[in-house]
C-alpha cells in the first residue's frame, strides 16, 4: 500500500536529511583552535542590536558601543577620569563677560555713569591691583543698538491658571556694553564687580531699555531681552593635524561645526540636542581650531565634546540631496536621520565599519591609518544573542571572548582558572524615594527611621549575592564628587522606633504606630520586570511592618508606573534607580524648581542650601572647587534623606585568558602586559592594545 509506505518513509527521510547535516558542521574545537583567524578577532556578545550608527542620533547602549569604536570625539576621559585630548590636541577655557552700561546710575566716586567714565574707572582700579579685576585680561566697549523684536505677553484671561498669550512688538534699545575677557571662568566675577561698584549691577533696571506700545512687558521679560550681565565661557580646541576619516579624507574644524549643526537641526531629532543647547556659537579658527562660546556658565557642557565627530563631506546638504534623489525621496525633507550613512558609518575612530546584519552581528576591521597607530585586534565582531544562557554557552565554547556574569554566577566563576575576571562597580544606584508632599514624609526623622529599619547589607548579601556596595549619596562612588566620609545609615530598628517616637508616632494597643489617632500607613510602589526591586520591596515592607507601620505594596507596569504615578507625583514611596553620568550636575534630580509634573525631582525635595550648591556646581569650572561643593551637597542630601540610598550594583566581566595588552618598546620589542581596569572600572580603556596570544608571557607590571 503506497500511502502506508509514504507515511512511514516521509518522516524517516526528513529526519535523516536533517540529522546528517551535523556531519558538515565544524565543532567548537575546529572554530577556536583550527582557525588561525580566530586569534586576530575579538567577539563580543550583546543582548540587543544597535539601532543607529551615528553618535549624534543614537541613545541606546548597543549603538554607543559601536559608535565609540568607529567615531571619536574631541576629548575623552583618561585612565584617572580626567580629560584627555583625542581629536583635539589641547584646549583652553576662558570667559567673556558682558556688563550693561547704565547711564542712569553713578559711580562710587559720584561721577555719572557713561561709556567712558565706567571704563576709565575700571581701568584705574585694575591698574591699582583691585582683586575683583585680577582675572581680567582685556576690557573693551561694545556700542549699543536698537532692534525691534516680537515677544509673547500674557493677558489675564478668564481663567487665571491659563493666561492667554499673544505676540507684541517691542523696541529693544541695547545699551552699550563692556566686554571683559577673563583668564579663567569665574562665576562670582560680577558679584565682586558689584561690590567694587557699590551695587551698580543690582540696580540695573532692564525695563528701561525695552519700549513697548503697551505696558505689559514684565521685568523678567525685559531682563531676558537685555540681561544686565552675561557670562560667556569660551573653549578653544586646537585640533590634531593629519587625522584621517576611514575614507581617507582629512578631519578638520569644519567637521566639528558640522557635527554641532547636525545635532541642533530640529529635523534630525537628535537626542543630544539638549546637551548642546547652551552653546551660543561654534567658530572656526582656521582648519585646526574651533572656538566654542556658551550662552551661560554650564560646566557639564565641556564633557559633551566627547561626542563622535561626523564627516561633513559625506553628509552635507549636497550629498544628502544627491542621496535623496537617488532614493526617489523628497530632497528638501531628507535629513541626516534618513541617510544610509547611519547603517554604514565612516568616522575617525580606531575601527572601520565593514558589515551589519540586523539582529545578527556587526563587523568592524581595524583602521590602518588610525592616528595613534592601528589597534592590535584586527577584527571586532559584535554578535547579538538575546538570550543570556546561550550567550554564556557561546562564551564557554570559546566562540565569544567576553561574558557579563549574572550576580548568582559570580561566586562560581570569579576564580575559574579558564578566564580572567574583572569586577566593576556600576554607575547607577537603587533607592527608596519618599514623596515629601505627603505630610508623613515631611519629617526627616521619619525618613531616617525608615532607612534605619532596613538591613541593606542583608539585601546585598542575599538578594544580590554580594554583588553590590552600599552607597550614601547621589554621586557614583568612583568619582571625586562622592564624599567617602559620609557614613551610611546604620541598621538599627530600635533607634528607628525611637526616632519615630520623637516625631510623634507611638505604638497603639494593637502594636501599630499612630499619631493623633491616625495610623502610620502608606503604599510602596515599584515597576514590573525588575526582580531585584521587587525583592527590596518585600524586605522593606517586612522591616517596616515589624516597626508597626502599615505598608501596602504595589508592582506596576513600567508605563503606568511612570506616567500615572511618578510623573504626576501620585505616590507615597517608591523604589527606583538612577544611572549617573560622570559630571557633578544634580540640578534636574534634586533642585526645588524641578518638582513639577513630569519633572525629575518627583519626591519634592526642597533645601535652599542644596539649591544654591546645585546651581553653583554646574557653573564651576575649577575641578577642586567643584569637588568641594559637590561633597558638601552629598553631605546635605545624605543628612536630609529624601531617598534611602541603598546600593550600587557590581558587574563581573569574564574575558578569555588569551587576551592581554601588547605595547611596543622604543627598541621595537613587544611587551605583554595584563589588562587593567581604569578608575571607573572599565576594562576596555586600552582596548587598542589588546591582543590574543596562545601563550602570553606577561611582563611584570
Amino acid at each position, binding site marked *: *500500500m503506497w500511502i502506508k509506505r509514504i507515511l512511514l518513509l516521509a518522516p524517516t527521510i526528513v529526519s535523516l536529511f536533517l540529522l546528517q547535516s*551535523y556531519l*558538515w*558542521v565544524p565543532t567548537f574545537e575546529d572554530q577556536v583552535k583550527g582557525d588561525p583567524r580566530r586569534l586576530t578577532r575579538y*567577539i563580543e556578545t550583546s543582548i540587543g542590536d544597535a539601532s543607529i550608527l551615528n553618535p549624534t542620533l543614537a541613545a541606546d547602549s548597543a549603538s554607543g558601543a559601536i559608535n565609540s569604536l568607529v567615531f571619536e570625539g574631541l576629548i575623552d576621559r583618561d585612565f584617572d577620569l580626567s580629560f584627555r585630548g583625542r581629536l583635539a590636541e589641547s584646549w583652553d577655557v576662558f570667559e567673556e563677560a558682558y556688563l550693561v552700561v547704565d547711564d542712569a546710575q553713578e559711580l562710587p566716586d559720584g561721577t555719572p555713569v557713561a561709556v567712558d567714565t565706567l571704563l576709565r574707572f575700571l581701568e584705574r582700579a585694575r591698574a591699582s591691583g583691585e582683586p575683583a579685576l585680577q582675572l581680567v585680561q582685556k576690557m573693551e566697549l561694545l556700542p549699543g543698538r536698537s532692534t525691534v523684536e516680537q515677544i509673547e505677553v500674557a493677558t489675564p484671561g478668564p481663567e487665571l491658571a491659563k493666561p492667554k498669550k499673544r505676540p507684541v512688538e517691542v523696541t529693544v534699545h541695547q545699551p552699550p556694553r563692556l566686554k571683559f575677557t577673563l583668564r579663567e571662568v569665574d562665576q562670582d566675577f560680577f558679584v565682586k564687580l558689584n561690590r567694587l561698584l557699590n551695587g551698580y549691577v543690582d540696580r540695573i533696571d532692564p525695563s528701561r531699555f525695552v519700549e513697548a506700545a503697551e505696558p505689559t512687558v514684565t521685568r523678567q521679560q525685559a531682563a531676558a531681552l537685555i540681561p544686565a550681565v552675561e557670562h560667556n565661557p569660551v573653549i578653544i580646541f586646537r585640533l590634531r593635524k593629519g587625522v584621517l576619516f576611514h575614507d581617507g579624507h582629512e578631519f578638520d574644524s569644519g567637521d566639528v561645526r558640522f557635527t554641532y549643526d547636525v545635532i541642533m537641526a530640529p529635523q534630525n531629532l537628535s*537626542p543630544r540636542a539638549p546637551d548642546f543647547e547652551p552653546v551660543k556659537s561654534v567658530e572656526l579658527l582656521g582648519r585646526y581650531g574651533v572656538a566654542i562660546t556658551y550662552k551661560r556658565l554650564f560646566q557639564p557642557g565641556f564633557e559633551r565634546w566627547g561626542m563622535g565627530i561626523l564627516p561633513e563631506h559625506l553628509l552635507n546638504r549636497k550629498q544628502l540631496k544627491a542621496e535623496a534623489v537617488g532614493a526617489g525621496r523628497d530632497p528638501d525633507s531628507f535629513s541626516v536621520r534618513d541617510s544610509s550613512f547611519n547603517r554604514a558609518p565612516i568616522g575617525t575612530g580606531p575601527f572601520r565599519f565593514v558589515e551589519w546584519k540586523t539582529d545578527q552581528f556587526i563587523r568592524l576591521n581595524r583602521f590602518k591609518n588610525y592616528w595613534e597607530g592601528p589597534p592590535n585586534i584586527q577584527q571586532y565582531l559584535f554578535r547579538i544573542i538575546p*538570550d543570556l544562557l546561550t550567550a554564556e554557552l557561546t562564551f564557554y565554547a570559546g566562540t565569544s571572548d567576553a561574558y557579563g556574569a549574572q550576580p548568582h554566577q559570580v561566586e562560581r566563576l570569579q576564580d575559574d582558572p579558564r578566564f580572567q575576571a574583572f569586577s566593576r562597580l556600576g554607575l547607577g544606584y537603587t533607592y527608596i524615594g519618599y514623596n515629601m508632599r505627603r505630610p508623613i514624609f515631611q519629617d526627616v526623622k521619619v525618613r531616617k527611621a525608615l532607612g534605619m529599619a532596613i538591613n541593606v547589607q542583608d539585601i546585598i548579601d542575599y538578594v544580590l549575592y554580594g554583588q553590590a556596595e552600599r552607597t550614601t549619596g547621589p554621586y557614583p562612588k568612583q568619582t571625586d564628587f562622592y564624599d567617602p566620609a559620609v557614613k551610611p545609615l546604620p541598621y538599627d530598628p530600635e533607634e528607628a522606633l525611637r526616632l519615630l517616637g520623637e516625631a510623634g508616632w507611638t505604638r497603639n494597643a494593637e502594636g501599630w504606630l499612630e499619631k493623633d489617632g491616625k495610623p502610620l500607613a502608606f503604599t510602596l510602589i515599584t515597576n514590573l520586570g525588575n526582580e531585584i526591586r521587587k525583592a527590596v520591596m518585600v524586605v522593606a515592607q517586612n522591616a517596616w511592618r515589624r516597626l508597626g507601620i502599615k505598608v501596602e505594596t504595589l508592582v506596576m507596569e513600567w508605563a503606568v508606573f511612570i506616567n500615572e504615578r*511618578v510623573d504626576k507625583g501620585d505616590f507615597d514611596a517608591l523604589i527606583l534607580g538612577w544611572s549617573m553620568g560622570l559630571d557633578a550636575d544634580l540640578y534636574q534630580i534634586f533642585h526645588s524648581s524641578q518638582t513639577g509634573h513630569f519633572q525629575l525631582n518627583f519626591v519634592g525635595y526642597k533645601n535652599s542650601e542644596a539649591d544654591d550648591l546645585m546651581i553653583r556646581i554646574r557653573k564651576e569650572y575649577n575641578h577642586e572647587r567643584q569637588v568641594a561643593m559637590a561633597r558638601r551637597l552629598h553631605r546635605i542630601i545624605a543628612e536630609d534623606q529624601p531617598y534611602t540610598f541603598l546600593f550600587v550594583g557590581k558587574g563581573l566581566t569574564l574575558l578569555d585568558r588569551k587576551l592581554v595588552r601588547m605595547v611596543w618598546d622604543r627598541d621595537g620589542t613587544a611587551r605583554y602586559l595584563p589588562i587593567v581596569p581604569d578608575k571607573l572600572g572599565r576594562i576596555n580603556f586600552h582596548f587598542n592594545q589588546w591582543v590574543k596570544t596562545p601563550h602570553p608571557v606577561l611582563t611584570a607590571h
Partner: protein
Amino acid sequence: MLSALLRIGWKKLWTLFFVSVVSFAVIHLAPGEPSQIDPLNPRFTPEVLQRYRKAFDLDKPLPIQYIRFYRKFFTGELRSFKDNQPVLPKIIERFWNSFPLFVVGTILVWCYAFPLGIASAIRRNSLFDKVTTVVVFALISVPGFYLAYLLIIFVVQNFHVDVIGLRTFGREGVGTFWTIMDRTWHLVLPSVLGATAGIAILSRYVRSQMLEVINSDYVRTARAKGLSEDAVLYKHALRNALLPFVTMLALLIPGLIGGSVIIEYIFAWPGIGRLGYEAILSRDYPIVVSLNFIAAVLTLIGTLLSDILYMVADPRIRLEKAE
C-alpha cells in the same frame, strides 16, 4: 460562484477594516510611549520630547494618526521609530529569515503527526497508543523554552557544535554545499522545538478523526466486501478522515508571519517573531501595527482559501446562490 466569492471578499474587506482600527487603537491606547521618548532621562527637556512626539505624529488626535499611518503604510513611507528604516523591507527581510524555520517545522509536523495519529487510532488502547498519549501530553505541557534549554545544553555539551543563529558564526569562505548543510543544521533544533507542540496536537486530532471514521458504517461495509485491512484503512478510512485537515492547510498561511518569539529569542534567530516582540517592548508602533495588519490580511486570505478548498474537497458543501 464568482459573485459568491466577491460577496465573501467584500465581507472580508470590512473585517479587515475593523481589524485595522482595533489593532491601531489597542496599541495606542495601551499605556506607554515609544522608548525614544524617555521622560526619565535627565538630559531630555520637554521640548525634545515634544519634538519626538511631533515627528512620530503622536501629538495629533487618534483618527488623524490612523489616517496618516495607513497612508504611509500603503505608500511605503512608513518608517520604524527605532532606526528610521522603512517598515516593509524590514518585515520582508525578517520574513525570509523565518520562512525556512516555518517550512521545516511544518514539514516535520505533518510528517510525524499523521503516522503517529493513525497508528494510535488503529492500535487503540494498545501499549503503543498509551505511550504516545503520555508522551504527547507531556510535550504539550512542557514549556517550549525549558525544552529548548535542555536540548541546547545537551547538544552543545555532547556534540560540541554551534546551534544558535542562522549559521555557524564567523565561518566564511567555505563552499556552497557546506554553507547549505551548515544552515540546515542550524534549522534542526529550532524547527524540531517549534514542531513538538504541533506534532503533539495535530496527532491527537488525527487520532480522533481516524477513530470516528474507523467506526463508521462504510468502513464496516468495506471490510465486509473483503478488502484487505490496509486498503480499508488507507484508502477508504484515511481519505475521509483527512477532510478536515484540508482546511487546516490554508489556515497555516497566517503562521507565515507569526514566527515563534521564544524559539527565535533563545536561538538568536533574526526572525519576524523577535522583530515583533522587540517592537512591542519599545513601543515601535509602525512595526507592531504593520505586523498586525499583515497578519490580519493573511488570516483572511487563509480562511477564504480554506473555504474554497473545503468546497473542492467535499462535494456536499456548496455556496448557496446569491438571492
